[in-house]
């Protein structure tokens, strides 16, 4: 049986993605789960130190962002992302990574027009649409309370 390159490609696509996507999926699950586990440990540590729930939660986010900045700085975060995929993108560490990476990358183009502009390449849209969504919700909530 001879197989044309086109057919072979189709067969390859049929066979390959399943194992690959399963591996990606479990990588994302375990790495993402691990970041959340670390978050939970920090949260409980800060609560045990006598912090209220909102403060402990904020400090947990700040700690994870700081950790992500260090890991991104020394080039480790990108290595984890190779098998972590969504597990390194979705947690707040991924958001931090998306801020730190362009800041480092574009510093060479200047602090204002390089770092200052590019720092929000990914975080900008997140903040813009997150804020817009919160305003829409706030307006609906305000009107519902008035009725």
């Amino acid at each position, binding site marked *: 049986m001879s197989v044309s390159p086109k057919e072979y490609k189709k067969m390859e696509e049929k066979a390959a*993605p399943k194992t690959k*996507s399963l591996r*990606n*999926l479990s990588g*994302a*699950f*375990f*790495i*993402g*789960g*691990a970041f*959340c*586990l670390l*978050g*939970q440990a920090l949260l*409980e540590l800060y609560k045990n130190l006598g912090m209220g729930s909102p403060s402990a939660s*904020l400090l947990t*986010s*700040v700690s*994870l*962002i*700081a950790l992500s*900045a*260090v890991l*991104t*700085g*020394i*080039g480790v975060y*990108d290595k984890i992302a190779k098998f972590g*995929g*969504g*597990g390194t*993108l*979705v*947690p*707040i*560490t*991924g*958001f*931090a990574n*998306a801020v*730190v990476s362009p*800041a*480092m*990358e574009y510093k060479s183009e200047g602090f204002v027009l390089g*770092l200052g502009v590019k*720092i929000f390449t990914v975080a900008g849209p*997140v903040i813009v*649409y*997150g*804020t817009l*969504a919160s*305003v829409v*919700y*706030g*307006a*609906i*909530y*305000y009107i519902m*309370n008035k009725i």
Partner: protein
Amino acid sequence: MEYLKAFLVGGILCAVGQIFIDRTKLTPARILVGFVVGGVILSALGIYEPLADFAGAGATVPLSGFGHLLAKGVRAAVNEKGLLGIFTGGITAASGGITAAIVFAFIAALFFKPKDK
């Protein structure tokens, strides 16, 4: 038990993100926008708060938790200040995270050089 719940729920949310990466052509920025806006909507519908009560950091560490934070902030601000709260609630609640990201990114850019890919 709290740790297991955080791990499982956080892992599942990240696996959902992975499905978007694998099955769609969405860029990481679009996926993150989707998670934040999705978090705002789920919080508005009253679904995210019970999830956060159940899973703790498993629900708050993923970026959908950032959306939940925005929604919670705007809700509290509207209760407190009325109409003006619509404008202040979201960003005020998110300010700690955004400022931390800016500060640590700036410091990292000062001390580290980008690696060759």
